[in-house]
């Protein structure tokens, strides 16, 4: 890539051999998130989502939709970098749809990134892909991705 720009709407989708309930727990319970989400502990309530690394606040977002085990929509502001923290909040939607033979389809849409170009670059590339690949491995094998 010559210039570092990224899309203002990013869509990521993955089939996971797990129930919607298991996926919902893995994305909302802090004891699971630390195993695949860049090592951060994420606390999600119907009001707010906060992620921490060693008790340092990394990301905060207002929860806009909280519909277990199918749909979670929350805001996204990263605090670990002053450039990212100064950008507009963006939005992340998690949609979980049950499929045939024990699979579920997880779609993560990160949008409203128009006012957050550096965040857009930051989460694209391997960002969300690593998270989703790690989540799939964790749910299907019970093991975090070797890294």
């Amino acid at each position: 890539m010559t210039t570092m720009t990224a899309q203002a709407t990013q869509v990521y989708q993955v089939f996971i051999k797990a129930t919607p309930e298991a996926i919902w727990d893995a994305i909302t319970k802090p004891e699971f998130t630390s195993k695949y989400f860049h090592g951060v502990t994420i606390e999600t309530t119907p009001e707010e989502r906060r992620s921490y690394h060693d008790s340092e606040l990394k990301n905060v977002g207002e929860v806009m939709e909280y519909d277990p085990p199918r749909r979670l929509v929350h805001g996204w502001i990263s605090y670990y970098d002053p450039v990212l923290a100064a950008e507009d909040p963006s939005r992340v939607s998690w949609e979980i749809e049950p499929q045939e033979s024990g699979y579920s389809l997880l779609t993560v849409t990160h949008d409203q990134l128009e006012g957050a170009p550096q965040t857009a670059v930051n989460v694209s590339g391997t960002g969300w892909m690593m998270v989703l690949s790690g989540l799939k491995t964790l749910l299907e094998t019970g093991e975090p991705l070797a890294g």
Partner: protein
Amino acid sequence: MNDDDRVFKALADPTRRHLLDRLFQRDGRTLSELESELEMTRFGVMKHLRLLEEAGLVVTRRQGREKLHYLNPVPIRLVHDRWIDKYTEHRVSALAELKTQLEETA
């Protein structure tokens, strides 16, 4: 055909790789936009997009009357994790083993 087969098959065609490159540059395009950049019939482009969608490499979203196409890079990442990492890891561990053996006998 399993998921990996579909991904490899989808990537085996230059037009489909070109479509993915176009979406990588700018996501959320309509069929008409994608079609205008290719010397191919609308039906041909649709056929390629359908194969990409079946392989999970393209995800579509409806926005009003338009159907927008987005690149989904996750299946490529999974192929990378399953295939490429597997071999590089062995190579690295083989080298590590060689080093241990050589140093033990030295």
